């Protein structure tokens, strides 16, 4: 199979398949969770559950006081790769064109050299996070195969993107095809791994904040 054939497949049927698996998978996992519902709370509220929910949805992006000192790598690595991943994904011109073609929305891009640097930093952060997962007692103890699969699924689009941008390893077309395929792999794996937190984190944070908010506690 030639690079162009691979790219054509990735941009055509591959994308269709990945998108379908992604949507079906995410819908199933989200709805099967959502329908379970929550029983009403009869205790007289001290504060607003909704306010607490919304509050935590945002504030939980910041570390709990003291946490940064206790596990700096988890936090810093986590921040860098999450933010870096989303910047490269959302603000690289070709990606915006893709998103525009899919969603109809578009926005200004960041210069390519900036994306390049951010991508590289994100790759470094992900490597650090992996090393930490493999060496730190808590992380290693908790990790299951799926955690490494999810790591790889996050890492590969960044790596292949970097390779493609710099014309490394193989010809651009093939690398671009691999890049698109790695993104599709990521899409497919979101509903199949913990990457599902992309969507459910909002529900989790909301409930955590709401349950506490009702009691007048800010968490």
């Amino acid at each position: 199979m030639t690079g162009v054939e691979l790219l054509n497949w990735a941009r055509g049927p591959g994308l269709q398949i990945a998108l379908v698996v992604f949507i079906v998978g995410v819908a199933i996992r989200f709805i099967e969770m959502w329908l379970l519902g929550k029983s009403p709370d009869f205790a007289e509220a001290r504060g607003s559950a909704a306010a607490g929910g919304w509050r935590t949805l945002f504030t939980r992006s910041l570390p709990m006081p003291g946490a940064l000192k206790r596990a700096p790598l988890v936090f810093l690595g986590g921040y860098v790769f999450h933010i870096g991943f989303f910047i490269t994904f959302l603000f690289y011109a070709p990606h915006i064109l893709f998103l525009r073609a899919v969603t109809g929305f578009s926005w200004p891009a960041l210069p390519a050299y900036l994306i390049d640097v951010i991508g590289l930093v994100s790759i470094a952060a992900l490597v650090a996070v992996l090393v930490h997962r493999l060496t730190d007692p808590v992380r290693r103890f908790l990790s299951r195969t799926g955690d490494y699969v999810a790591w790889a699924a996050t890492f590969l689009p960044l790596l292949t993107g970097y390779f493609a941008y710099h014309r490394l390893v193989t010809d651009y077309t093939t690398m671009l095809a691999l890049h698109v395929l790695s993104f599709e792999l990521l899409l497919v794996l979101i509903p199949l791994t913990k990457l599902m937190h992309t969507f459910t984190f909002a529900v989790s944070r909301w409930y955590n904040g709401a349950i506490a908010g009702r009691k007048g506690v800010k968490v």
Partner: protein
Amino acid sequence: MHEPETLGDVLAKRGVSRRGFLKYCATLASLMALPPSVAAQMADKLTRATRQSVIYLSFQECTGCLESLSRTHSPTLEGLLFDLISLDYQETLLAAAGHAAEEARANAMRANSGKFVLMVDGAIPLKDGGVYSTIAGRTNIEILKEAVPHAAAVIAVGTCSSFGGLPHANPNPTGAVSVGTLMEKGLIERKPLINVSGCPPIPVVISGVVAHFLTLGTLPELDGYGRPKVFFGDTIHDRCYRRPFYDQGKFAKTFDDEGARNGWCLYELGCKGPTTYNACATAKWNGGVSFPIESGHGCLGCSEPDFWDAGSFYAPLPAPRAPLSAAAGAAIAVGVAAGAAVGLAGLYKRKKAQQAHTKLTVDDLETEKKP
């Protein structure tokens, strides 16, 4: 058929000055990224070389490649190609026709067996026994099967013979394939093969390959697609003079907007330069006048396999090849239905468990010591 005469003789006869020929060689050398000093050696070697016997076969094609090669209003440098070679058979250019033409081919093949270069343009249909393209009642594949064993090397001219091109495009009704595919499948004998792709290929690239063969007696180094690296080593994008705008994120949004007038990058307008390996941005067209991007139109990717199937020429490279909304819509429907089914099953399961719940009392709790 032809007396073996040196190229020098031919050039002299045609009144090509040594200066003009040197200039031609210098152009080739620079295109092939050879040091300028080589140009003189090349000129020397070429002048002393005997003309290369070439047989040129055309199959499922549009004659665009030959047009590109031969349509020279004034004596351009590429036109010199015809002076480098002894074109012993070319259907379109041949004066003879019918049986006489077929005979010419047979003769040329016999006379130069093992020495001639076989140039092929057009794809070869295989479906239904190859009946979709025949010459004098013989299918393309038959003709090729007969010619290839006698050739010293095969040059696939144009994207059709290199990769299948337009005839091969989805749904490929004639089962068209490239020369390379035929060799891979063992349908024709394996011979050194160079793909000079492009729809059409750049003339100077064709003559460059021939010149390389004549001067060095070898085939140039090839890329993964069998294309000479010297011409197909970089993407249009990497050599494009509009590239800085790409890096800065400045894109023309329509063909006549401010950005287009300012010469910004054509990526958003569908330019396939980033995935296209060809020499357009450096060799240019029409004697070095311009190339498509310079004229304001994105690259179509014509030198790449399956470029016809890469979606709209005007859709940006990252855009999906086909609309996704139908698939997405169906997926949402299926996902919601399946999710609801699993969710309701879960609810039912929990309800059943809650109904079956019997009150736990402290009497149920067994302890080792009695409280």
